[in-house]
């Protein structure tokens, strides 16, 4: 048994060659299976008297899996050949490559076995454009590959590209059978094809002339073997069939794939020895300098260059030593890992608009992963009760199934958007995932079509395409930008109002933080206008510009990027200090904010009141903690508030170790570290050594070790510290208790094998 694949440029005649070859093989009494892998599904037509058969993909779409049967897909053609067509989506829609993958899976599942035939023949779409079309190239499928080409440059280019594709799949054994030359009758065509064949080291197995019998047989819906068995072309196919028969027994006739580089191919076929030097638009000509692209493309990567130079065309001149020493890109540059995806980030932003719906265009898994996190934070944060909102934020998934991936999912998306609008949502965001993006579903088109049916409604597309446009932060920012489209730029400023910018919604304490800030603002006579973007609604978004100033929840790069965007777009004023953590930061925050909002107002009574409260509380714990030695280990240097608390309690900071930050963030640095030593690139080993030599009473770190180490108390640094003047108090209370407890709790002895 042998499996063969015929590849070639679109329109080169693969279907005709495949069908005629299958017919000739059938005449040799071979059991033949021909599988057409071209979405236009006409590969087997001539074997079936011109009949069009149902495709695997159409059948898959129309028939429930449990009812599917192989008999509905395999049809008997000329000479008992078994004919199957994979099919595919309409041009420009969906993913034809995925279609090929799915067809092969279906055929396998339904029990189609190659071993039941003598020859299995795959006719494949023009070029190896993606992995889907390369399926027949895989070792488990094609034993031998035939290239169908004419003498046109693009046909030879495709043939060469296919050789490149094969090279990507090559393991030990060669798999290229040779070239089938389908003549077009062009000038010097034969020279070009044979030169190409020599250059890539392949035989020309058949040279098929242009002949009227092809057209007549096609009109009759027949192969030459059936319609014109005594014609010259029919005899060529008989010879080719015999070669396949030989190949079935002797695989030593197969050749390795040795493609040419582009310049070699151009030299060979077009006679062009070098490429014109072009300059990027708007730059000065630089004729002496080659661009990286030119250098890369002129690289000699094929051992057949010498053969070409001795053939009908000259090869390009050898590179100069200077050019030779220029480093070529051998690998793609390192790209930092993308944490999360833009789809999830964008949906997280739009989800915060409580009276808007978000349509998620992708498979259920993407929706589940994202919605699980959103539902968790919404429900655990008391989403419904806290805000008094009865309406649950709308998430509508398209739940793309395999058929939408293959045939395109725009229709389903459009009806899902209409479902949201019909349910009364006046604002609908549409976010897409990797699969939606890869198959090219244009969500803008679906959004605008659906919007047209609902006057007054807004459908806002966010084509972030899963991870294709970036990570979670990228998507979050894109989500913020599109939500900002709802802001009415003509709204006038009102005194006594502020906006809160950049709250995250992941921390359970976020609402507590907000209440603290809200309380401080109240003492200054201010109230919150809009929270961008946390549990807000379209009304407060439209009124966004009423606020006198915008307060940042965090000072991290994401929030600063959002600040820059909003500031640039709406000419807003921002208060530069983020929500304060700890007594010192809070004092500065209140004073600075009051100076800006209430010039001349004396806030010292407020600060004094807070200080008295803080000192009185701290004093309760000093008794237990005075003079105790603390080692602090942290991923970030944003721990001044902890160090202040330690100092305020009369404890001693003996050292601060900064671990390599897992997320690669650069923190601003400690405000002051004169009273202790600091070490960067701190490790667990260094900590263990310091514990032994410095003998702290307490070690603070982001994660506490589970095993009992070095007989010392450990505690964790909070991920989401309390905002405001009293942040340190909960730590002080905890440490004062902790140091009175056993240094090593009993459970820690139970972790061994």
């Amino acid at each position, binding site marked *: 048994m042998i499996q063969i694949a015929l590849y070639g440029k679109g329109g080169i005649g693969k279907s005709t060659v495949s069908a005629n070859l299958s017919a000739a093989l059938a005449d040799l009494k071979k059991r033949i299976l021909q599988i057409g892998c071209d979405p236009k599904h006409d590969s087997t037509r001539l074997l079936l008297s011109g009949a069009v058969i149902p495709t695997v993909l159409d059948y898959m779409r129309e028939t429930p899996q449990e009812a599917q049967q192989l008999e509905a897909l395999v049809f008997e053609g000329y000479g008992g050949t078994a004919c199957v067509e994979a099919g595919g989506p309409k041009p420009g829609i969906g993913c034809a490559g995925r279609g090929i993958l799915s067809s092969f899976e279906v055929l396998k599942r339904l029990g189609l076995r190659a071993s039941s035939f003598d020859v299995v023949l795959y006719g494949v779409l023009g070029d190896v454009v993606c992995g889907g079309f390369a399926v027949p190239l895989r*070792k488990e499928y094609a034993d031998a590959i035939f290239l169908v080409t004419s003498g046109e440059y693009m046909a030879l280019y495709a043939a060469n590209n296919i050789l490149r594709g094969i090279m990507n799949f090559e393991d030990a054994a060669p798999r290229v059978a040779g070239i089938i030359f389908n003549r077009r009758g062009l000038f010097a065509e034969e020279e070009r094809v044979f030169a190409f064949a020599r250059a890539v080291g392949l035989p020309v197995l058949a040279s098929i002339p242009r002949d009227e019998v092809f057209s007549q047989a096609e009109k009759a819906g027949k192969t030459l073997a059936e319609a014109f068995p005594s014609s010259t072309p029919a005899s060529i196919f008989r010879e080719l069939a015999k070669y396949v028969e030989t190949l079935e027994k002797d695989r030593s006739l197969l050749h390795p794939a040795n493609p040419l580089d582009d310049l070699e191919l151009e030299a060979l076929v077009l006679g062009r020895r070098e490429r014109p030097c072009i300059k990027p638009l708007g730059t000065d000509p630089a004729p002496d300098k080659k661009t990286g692209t030119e250098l890369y493309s002129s690289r000699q990567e094929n051992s057949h260059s010498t053969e070409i130079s001795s053939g009908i065309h000259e090869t390009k001149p050898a590179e100069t030593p200077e050019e030779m020493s220029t480093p070529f890109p051998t690998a793609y540059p390192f790209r930092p890992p993308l944490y999360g995806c833009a789809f999830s980030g964008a949906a997280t932003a739009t989800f915060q608009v409580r009276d808007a719906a978000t349509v998620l265009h992708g498979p259920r898994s993407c929706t*589940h*992963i994202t919605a699980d996190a959103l539902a968790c934070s919404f429900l655990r944060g008391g989403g419904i009760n806290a805000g008094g909102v009865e309406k649950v934020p709308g998430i509508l998934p398209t739940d793309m199934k395999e058929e939408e991936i293959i045939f395109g999912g725009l229709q389903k998306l459009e009806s899902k958007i209409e479902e949201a609008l019909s349910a009364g949502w006046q604002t609908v965001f549409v976010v897409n995932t990797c699969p939606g993006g890869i198959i090219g579903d244009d969500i803008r088109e679906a959004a605008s079509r659906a919007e047209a049916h609902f006057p007054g409604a807004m459908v806002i597309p966010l084509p972030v395409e899963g991870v294709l446009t970036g990570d979670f932060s990228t998507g979050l920012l894109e989500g913020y930008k599109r939500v900002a489209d709802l802001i009415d730029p003509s709204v006038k400023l009102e005194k006594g109002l502020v906006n809160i910018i950049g709250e995250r919604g992941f921390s359970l304490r976020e609402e507590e933080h907000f209440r603290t800030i809200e309380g401080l603002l109240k003492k200054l006579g201010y109230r919150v206008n809009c929270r961008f973007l946390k549990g807000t609604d379209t009304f407060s978004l439209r009124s966004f510009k009423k606020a006198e100033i915008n307060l940042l929840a965090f000072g991290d790069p994401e929030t600063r990027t959002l600040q820059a965007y909003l500031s640039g777009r709406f000419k807003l004023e921002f208060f530069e200090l983020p929500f304060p953590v700890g007594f010192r930061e809070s004092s500065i925050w209140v004073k600075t904010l009051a100076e800006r909002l209430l010039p001349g107002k004396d806030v010292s009574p407020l600060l004094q009141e807070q200080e008295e409260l803080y000192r009185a509380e701290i004093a309760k714990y000093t008794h237990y903690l005075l003079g105790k030695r603390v080692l602090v280990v942290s991923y970030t240097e944003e721990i001044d508030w902890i160090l202040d608390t330690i100092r305020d309690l009369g404890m001693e900071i003996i050292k601060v170790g900064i671990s390599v930050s897992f997320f690669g963030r650069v923190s601003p640095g400690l405000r002051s570290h004169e009273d202790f030593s600091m070490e960067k690139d701190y490790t667990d080993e260094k900590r263990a050594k310091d514990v032994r030599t410095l003998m702290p009473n307490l070690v603070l770190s982001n994660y506490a070790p589970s095993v009992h180490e070095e007989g010392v108390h450990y505690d964790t640094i909070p991920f989401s510290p309390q905002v405001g003047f009293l942040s340190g108090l909960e730590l002080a209370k905890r440490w004062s208790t902790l140091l009175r407890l056993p240094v090593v709790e009993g459970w820690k002895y139970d972790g061994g094998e």
Partner: protein
Amino acid sequence: MLIFSPDAFTGSILAVEGIKDAAVILNGPIGCKLYHSFLSDRQFPREGSHDPLAFQDEFYFGQPRVPCTGLDGEDYIRGSLEKFERALTTIAAKEKGLLMVLNSPGASLVGDDLESVIKKAGMQNRCFVVENPGFSLPAARGFENVALALLENMKLRSIHRPRNPKKVNLIGLSLLHKHWEGSVAEMKRLLAFLGLEVGAVFLAGTSLEEIRESGDAACNIVLFPEYGRRIAEWYRESFGTSAVFSPLGAPIGFDASESLLREVATVLNIDPAPALAEIQKARKASYRQISRFYSYSGLPKGASFSIRAESSLAYPLTQWLYSYLGMAPFAVKLLPGSDPEITGSLKAFLEEKGFCEAWDRDPSLESVDIAFADSPTLQLLKAKGCCKACIEITLPEEGYIHIIPKTYLGVSGALLLIEEIINGLRSK
């Protein structure tokens, strides 16, 4: 809507993550990995720490489970094989057992020939590929697809051992099932009354060795048919192993548990009496408490309930709450992928008992005494005033950390349900 159950992608990952000495390599972006690593680690903890610095190896991205290639947009265009080759080498050196490579939904569209890389690395014997993540198919379908691919990959058909009349396998249990660990313990306990030992648990907490030796079992007991019907069929075809199903679905409540144990005893021609005696003992214990509660409250009779679950769980629960505790079904909503046979039985049951309006009704449209569902659904129902008490019977969970093994299956499961129901009703 806010709550969306997992699909085949998650079901596929958790199938292999349910094997002690196997791991999943995800060929996809980190965004697809983070959730699944978290879920696998929470359902089947293997590590003692959450510190990301402890999992800094390349391709693990600070988490202990489900290493991934970390694909980005460029990889979708240029192909992922170079990254995959590197990841395979690194991960294979770190993980010791079997590896399954699974494409993310996006990566599966690229069509990279991952198999060729595995062959090149000479790792066909410990690594297999599942290319299709099952776009939006139910979780149970993904679980079964992967389980069947695993069986084929392990070439179990070629391992022939004499049948062990005292050994059974448990089929159709996943890390996606709440309290899976306690469920395994309970089934082992009950089957021991029949003189039976459990071999492989397909696929929750089992080992490759147990799977390799699973062909000699006297029968396969299917706990959740959605997750095991096709697997049991594979064993029947390959080894002639009988499959035992409870006609009511999963062994939830006394009746379904009793029915399953009777079926097992019939198939293996053994006396069910010792196991039935254990159930009888539990019935007596529950009687005393139900009776005392009933005497002053008249409950649980007349208390209403709603359920959102797969049919193999929803049917025995509905049937048992109705017939044993006299509770009224107001809303029963099935999750995607429910077993069609059991779904039909459930629908017929509700119609027969005069509660057809409860069929396929969303729990958020009814106000009931007790709601049975996953945690987010329950939180939502509670917040909207649609239930007085909640019992979390499926994933996702709220995050409660269980130390004592619990189960809703078997005798212990029935007692736990009664306890939670009575206390739920009592406190309202």
